[in-house]
């Protein structure tokens, strides 16, 4: 009898684990290595074409200095040979936002991408340099809308106005979330930072691929946002009240208005192995994967 119960339990566990997998939906698994985009994609002259479901969301930048330079690049790749290059020219605010429609209207999104920030550009950053309307931030990812206060926004925000309970590092840029008009940096009550002192400073991690993941969830009138870097939970927040019921659009933005010392320099970042799913965390090392394995950790460390 005990043997029968054991086997039935095993079969049930197997069934439910398979069932769990079948429920998971992957909306995007993009490594930019397969196929060739239309010549005008995404923001070259005459743009408007779509490639693998990605289309230019701000076609007004198709003939501006930064927009036409955005596109597939072989400068850096986390896997294969190509990545997407988001480019802003010096003394320009124009880039090329990439949109992707989420037609099944999920209520939970895991957005995992590998991002590369070259030091040649990002070492020019100074507090106050990343600014939109003196707001000291750069929009990085949108959901649902880029033009109004509806949806999730991931912003890159510098230390001088980065509201963290532990302090404001002088040379700092990190990701901060926003849902509708509720901003993480002005609403302490909704915020739990995994590292309240430093958050995650990408300026300390230039010239390498960073595995960045955001969990966005709409449930019970709340919006939840988690942020992971290299598989570690960095920030978690709960926004009470939301105007949305689901997700219908994801925008990888480069929407920028750089001022101060940084505005006179160009700004690049690269995106590879982007995966969007309704189940996660997706984690690092899947969805396109890497074409190289990490090196071994150093041995024999001593301190004197």
């Amino acid at each position, binding site marked *: 009898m005990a043997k029968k119960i054991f086997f039935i339990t095993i079969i049930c566990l197997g069934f439910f684990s398979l069932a769990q997998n079948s429920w998971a939906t992957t909306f995007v698994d993009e490594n930019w290595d397969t196929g060739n985009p239309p010549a005008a994609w995404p923001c070259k002259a005459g743009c408007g074409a779509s490639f693998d479901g990605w289309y230019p969301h701000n076609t007004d930048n198709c003939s501006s200095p930064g927009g036409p330079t955005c596109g597939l690049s072989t400068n850096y790749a986390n896997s294969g040979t190509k990545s997407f290059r988001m480019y802003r020219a010096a003394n320009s605010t124009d880039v090329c936002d990439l949109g992707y429609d989420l037609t099944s209207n999920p209520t939970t999104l895991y957005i995992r991408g590998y991002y590369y920030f070259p030091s040649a550009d990002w070492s020019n950053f100074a507090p106050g340099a990343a600014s939109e309307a003196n707001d000291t931030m750069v929009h990085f990812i949108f959901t649902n809308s880029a033009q109004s206060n509806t949806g999730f926004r991931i912003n890159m925000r510098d230390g001088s106005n980065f509201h963290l309970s532990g302090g404001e590092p002088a040379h700092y840029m990190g990701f901060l979330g926003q849902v509708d008009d509720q901003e993480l940096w002005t609403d302490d009550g909704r915020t739990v930072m995994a590292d309240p002192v430093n958050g995650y400073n990408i300026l300390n991690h230039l010239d390498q691929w960073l595995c960045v993941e955001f969990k966005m969830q709409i449930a019970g009138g709340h919006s939840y946002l988690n942020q992971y870097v290299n598989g570690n939970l960095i920030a978690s927040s709960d926004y009470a009240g939301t105007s949305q019921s689901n997700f219908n659009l994801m925008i990888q933005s480069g929407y920028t208005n750089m001022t101060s010392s940084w505005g006179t320099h160009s700004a690049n970042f690269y995106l590879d192995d982007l995966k969007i799913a309704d189940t996660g965390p997706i984690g690092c090392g899947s969805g396109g994967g890497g074409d190289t394995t*990490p090196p071994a*950790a*150093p041995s*024999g460390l001593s301190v004197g």
Partner: protein
Amino acid sequence: MMAKKRIIVLVVLIAVVAGVTFWFSHKDDKVTGSAALTWNQNTEAGLAGYKVYYGTSHRTADCPPGGYGNSANAGKNNKYTVTNLSPGQTYYFSVTSVNTAGKESCFSPEMKKTISRFEWLKNIF
């Protein structure tokens, strides 16, 4: 006897003047400590360099960022000196390897050092 007394007074006077002079010349010095780190070279092909991570508490994960508050690029050197460390404070250190594809290893074993409270003595000797 009188001469001996004068000599003692003179020596004390010189010592006081020297002490006051030293105090005035160093009173604004910010005394900090340092930690010299060394590790074995990683001989893998495509190695771009090393990163040093450090903070005042144990790391929270085996791979970056791991909860360390600070990091520094060590280049391809297998040694690095961390400076501006607070006396009396214990610091924890780990190192990672980064290859030319931008991939970073997990952490080396963690080491620690407590910075001496007598760092200021190094300014004298």
